[in-house]
Structures are given as C-alpha cells and as structure tokens.
C-alpha cells in the first residue's frame, strides 16, 4: 500500500474542496504538478488526509491554525500513520540515547515522538504554541509512566532562556512544524543541543524538479514551503551540524545530524 498514492489522491480531493480565493491558485498549481497516483493508496493515510482536505477551510480561517481542533486531530492521526512511524523509527535508529541527558520536541503536536523515546532520556521537554496540544502530550507521557517531563507553551521564536540546560536530543517532526521556516527551527535547536547531541527532523522534503504530495496541503493551511533535501543539507551544514544522515520515505524523510 502506498502512502504517496494516498497523498496524491487526497490532494485531488483537496483541489475540489478549495474555494475561489487568491491563495487557492498556488495550491491548485501544485496539485496539477503531481504525477498520477501509482499503486494502491494506504487506506488509513487516505482517510487522514481526506479529513484534512475536508477541514482545510475552518483550520485556515482560525486565528491560530496550528491550534485549531481539527488540526490537532489531524496531526495526531498523521503521526500514528505507518509512514510517519517508519520515518520516526528509522530516525531514532540513528540516535544513541544518553540516560543523563534530556530530549526536547519542538512544536511537539500531540507528543507522539516523546512518547516513543520515553524511558531512554532523563527528562522529556515538549514545546508547543498550543496549550491543548501540551495536554495531549501530558496524556501520552502519563500513560507511559514518564516521571520527569516539562511542558512549555511557546515556539522556536519564544524559547530563548526557557530551556535551562542543553539537551541530548532535539526533535522537530510534528506537522505543527509545517507552519515554521526550517532555518530558524534548525538554528534554535542547534543552540539548545549539547556537544554530541542529536538533531532529528521528520519533514516532507521537496525533490528536485518535483512537488511533495504534502505540499498542496501545507500551502492550503497557510504553512511554509518545505525545503528541498539539498536546501536542508546546506542549512544544517552551514549551521555547524555534522554527520548528516537522510532516510527518504515515500512522503517523509528522516534527517539526523550531530552537533560536534
């Protein structure tokens, strides 16, 4: 079953649901650039993305789209999809946990990534602009028996001085990150990492000459264009990261880098 086929099929549904608004044109253009879907669409992911397509207007029109209830539900459902879980698994396989260090998840969404690393790090820190997302994080962390965690309402622009000690793992993976430029996120996470600390990004990277099937959704949400793999690699290296590893999935890539 294909995650890519699911996203392409749902993107066509998104195109049909769009109103005639100036911002719709860019979305329609990126949908028109998508190739025909190949293979059988992953039925779970198709439902998840069709839900997003159906709810795109109320989400986009809300004052804080990343905190809209429909987006919160979508983000959790998306992060539990096989495609996301596989990217997370592949990314975490490159990371050696340090029992004395903390793990931080920036723009954590519902906390699916922190739940996956609970028990491997001394402390878990979730940062998200939506307090209700942090309630979801807490729900998950309490359920897995996490004893030491911190929940911070904020984002990469307001985090300065709020994380006291450097962390051993910094994650930016949830769809809440779709609303942020990659460069300030990478830069902020670099400053929070301890030497030897790991950065884990999960993102729909554009491919040279092509469009990610998730790009129309991101554009329709009013999010930021995802960087291409090459742009992201340049960004990470110029920030000072080393030992880059990129695992490309059908829709999502897992990128791991180390702060020297």
């Amino acid at each position: 079953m294909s995650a890519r086929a699911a996203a392409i099929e749902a993107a066509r549904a998104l195109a049909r649901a769009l109103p005639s608004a100036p911002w719709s044109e860019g979305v329609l253009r990126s949908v028109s650039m998508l190739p025909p879907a190949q293979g059988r669409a992953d039925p779970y992911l198709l439902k998840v993305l069709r839900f997003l397509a159906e709810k795109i207007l109320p989400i986009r029109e809300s004052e804080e789209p990343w905190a809209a209830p429909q987006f919160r539900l979508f983000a959790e459902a998306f992060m539990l999809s096989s495609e996301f879980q596989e990217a997370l698994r592949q990314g975490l396989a490159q990371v050696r946990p340090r029992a004395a260090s903390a793990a931080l998840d920036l723009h954590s969404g519902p906390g699916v990534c922190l739940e996956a690393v609970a028990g491997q790090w001394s402390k878990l820190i979730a940062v998200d602009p939506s307090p209700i997302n942090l309630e979801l994080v807490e729900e998950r962390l309490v359920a897995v028996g996490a004893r030491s965690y911190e929940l911070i309402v904020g984002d990469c622009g307001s985090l300065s001085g709020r994380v006291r000690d450097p962390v051993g793992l910094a994650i930016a993976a949830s769809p809440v990150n779709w609303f942020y430029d990659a460069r300030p996120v990478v830069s902020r996470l670099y400053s929070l990492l301890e030497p030897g600390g790991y950065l884990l990004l999960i993102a729909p990277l554009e491919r040279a000459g092509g469009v990610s099937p998730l790009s129309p959704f991101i554009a329709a949400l009013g999010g930021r264009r995802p960087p291409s793999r090459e742009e992201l690699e340049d960004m990470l290296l110029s920030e000072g990261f080393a030992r880059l590893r990129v695992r490309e999935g059908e829709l999502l890539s897992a990128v791991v880098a180390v702060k020297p």
Partner: protein
Amino acid sequence: MAVRAVRVLKLRCPECGREAAIQVGEDTLAAAAASPAGLVGVADYHGDHVLVVYVDGEGRDRGVRVFRTLQRGEALRVNPSFLSYTGLVAGFRVSSGGWSVECFAGSPRALLRVLRNEQALDLELRSFEYAARVVEWGGGLLGALERAGLPDLGGLLLSILLLDANATNPPSPFATRLFEIALKARRLTVRVDPSAAELLREYASRVPGLSPRLVDFALSVNGWRLIDAVAGPDPLTIRERLQALMSLERRGVVGFEEVGA
C-alpha cells in the same frame, strides 16, 4: 472517626423525584443550634442539582430547596453518603468569600488546607501519601473557582470527584482548565463533530484511556448537557466518562458549547 447519625430524614426530591436519605449527625445538630437562624442546610448530590434540607437543632426537617448555583452567604453541608463516591478524599470543605460547602462523615482529626486568595480548600484524606500532589491539584481547583465566581453546586461536587480521581497523578499544569470545565458542567452542551469522530475511531485504540467504545459513547451524548452526559451508576463510570469526554475535547471530536444557566 465517624460521628453517629442521630437521625436519617427520608424525603423525595421535588426536582427529580429521587428518594433521598439524609444523615443528620450530632455535629449538624450542634451547628444548627449555634447558627443565628437555628437552622443548617444539609445537601444531597443529585448530579445537575443539589437537594438541600434545612434542619433545626433537634434534627427536624424545616424545609427543602433545590439549588443549582451557590448563593452568597450560603453554608451547606453535603450528605456524607457523597463520600462513598471518593477514594482518597474522606471529607472536604470548600469556602470562598461568601459561601462554604462541606462534607464530613465525622469530626476530622487532621485537615490539609490549600489556600488561594479568598478561597480555601480543607481536605480530610484517607492517606497522606500523596499530600503534596493533592495540594497542587487543590490549587488548580481553587484557581478555577476564582475564575468561575459563584459556582454551580453540581459542578463543584463533580470537581471534587475529579480531584479525587487525579490526586495520585503528578500535578498537571492544565488542572485549572479541567476544573473550569467541571465547574461549568451544567451549562455546557456536548457537540460532536461526526467526521472527526469517524477519524478518531480509526486510531482510538492507540490513544491512552480511549477506545472505539468510548467514541461511540461520545456520539451517543451529542446535544446533552455535560453534567448529564457523565452521570453514571457509579463513581468509576462518572470519572471514565468525564475523562473520555475531556480527551475527545482535546482532539476536537467533541466541543463544549456554553448555554445560558
């Protein structure tokens, strides 16, 4: 130490018709005798409303009244049978500038006091093992009360159940919002987004504390008042339903719409 019930008043609630057995203890008789009016109110929890029986110093029924919202200057005692719903909390008193509500099965030997501006919460606990956490959760309840003003009495008792259910968990920074919803439970209507419910059903088994069965429950209470939606035959069911609805609200499957009191 439990105080002997010197009298049990049996009466029917004029609001819901439920038969109520109100225990009147020696402390209640003493409180009535000491009050300027010679009466004390004893409250019985009926979900969205509270039946209050006024008792004189000799334990006679001097009138009943159904309360929805607490009145300024009111001092109510809740029928100790309410404590059969709680695990950790063996008695409590909540007081604010103008009112107080208490429920004790006897004379408490030790009380844990939580203070916040004009509000105070005194708790008798069956175990003090989790006292530090209880203080944090109690602070959340008082914070919510501060914002709520004169609270809905049924919502206040629902909040005590929530405090009791959560007090052994680490304190949550979001406790105040949880209690705010419970305090307003009579004024909130449950609204379900069917397409969101359909999506959640796909992965509900991977969400802590949820299941497709609870999603079905949420769909079945669409349009109900929250306080009616959580009402159940036993305290565990009430807790499970309230926590499930809160969990669904966080995910946007359920919305709580405030309607006039």
